[in-house]
């Protein structure tokens, strides 16, 4: 009888331990967050195609809303100063909020292209990366720098990954430049005339009393 009770006790402890482990495991799963659907290798091959950038000149403004939707990733403050017509403001650090993700998915479902923009393509690429990895397709980055100067919204197309000058040529030219030595002019002074003054001998009067 006693042995049965001990075995029952051990079984209960084991079951309890297993339940605790199970609950702990369940707690570790973050059911609220989205999970990545693409592997880094998939993104890498997508990046190599370089189809993720779009120039302003390629966009037909009349197609706005019907074919594509601008998503402004800047802060609300910058967005309110000026933005593209019909653009939606989603501040970059908040893109993973449920309402924003469902909005992205809705736009994608409607078959429209999402054009992300911020102050520069460099600032936008991180958002593109996270959203693409989450499986959202039809994402493009506006290849332009956005500034607000003198009360006007400036959109300048940029040439990414281009050097303004060949560094090798710059170094070569620098070594070819010959700098003429500086001239230091020192005036030659005429020697001063030295007039020697003959010292008169003081003659001591002779005689006296």
């Amino acid at each position, binding site marked *: 009888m006693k042995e049965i009770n001990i075995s029952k006790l051990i079984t209960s402890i084991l079951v309890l331990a297993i*339940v605790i482990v*199970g609950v702990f495991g369940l707690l570790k799963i973050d059911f609220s967050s989205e999970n990545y659907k693409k*592997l880094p290798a998939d993104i890498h091959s997508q990046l190599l195609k370089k189809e993720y950038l779009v120039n302003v000149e390629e966009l037909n403004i009349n197609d706005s809303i019907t074919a594509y939707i601008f998503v402004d990733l800047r802060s609300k403050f910058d967005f309110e100063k000026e933005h593209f017509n019909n653009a939606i403001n989603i501040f970059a650090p908040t893109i993973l909020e449920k309402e924003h993700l469902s909005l992205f998915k809705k736009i994608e479902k409607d078959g429209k292209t999402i054009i992300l923009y911020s102050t520069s393509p460099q600032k936008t690429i991180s958002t593109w990366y996270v959203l693409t990895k989450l499986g959202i397709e039809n994402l493009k980055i506006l290849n332009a720098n956005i500034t607000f100067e003198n009360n006007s919204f400036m959109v300048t197309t940029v040439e990414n*990954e281009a050097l303004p000058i060949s560094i090798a040529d710059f170094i070569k030219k620098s070594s070819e430049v010959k700098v003429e*030595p500086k001239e*230091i002019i020192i005036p030659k002074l005429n020697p001063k005339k030295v007039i020697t003054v003959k010292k008169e001998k003081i003659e001591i009067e002779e005689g006296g009393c």
Partner: protein
Amino acid sequence: MKNKNLFLFLLLLIVSAIVFIMPLLIKGDSLTPKSQLAAIISSERFINADELADKLINKDPSIVLVDLRTNAEFEQYHIPTAINIPFDSLLDDENKAFLNQDKVSIVLYSNDYLIADQAWFLCNSLKYKNLIVLKDGLKGFYNTILNPVLPEEKMDQVDFERYNFRKAAGIYFGVPYNTAPEKAVIKTVEKPTLKKVVPVKKVKVEVEEGGC
């Protein structure tokens, strides 16, 4: 009855084991979008040209430079000590062993920093450690170190010291220093002799006296 209990026990054991292991099985890379977005937004992954130049001049052994540009661009010019891993072949098996380590800090750079940043995202997803991106890439390195702008006269002393450091660093990285002549030419010019001034005595005009 005994068999039923054993069955339930085993079932519970298996379910618990699956639940416990599940988070690890969900995806190959366990980085969540939230944690990666936080890392991406943070600017900790960047190093600027001045800091990098300082580390390279001091021959910091904890730094390894990786040039992500094409082989042709690399051959034209690259920052001294850099090795070339073109972005196209970043995820190749031969490069994995080099990039996936925790001994040194790997500084990634390209002409700008768009490609270097992309390389960082990909390697970060693969949980590679100690990766840094050169802010503004080779373009920034050229503007800061190889061809620095002379500060204006009204600027602070610190700016002049920084300029001097950059100019000296530029020489270290291959730019010849040619803004000053090797030796000044000293010319002597004879001072023109002064003319002797001979004072002329004015003759007093005497007014004749008397007479009517």
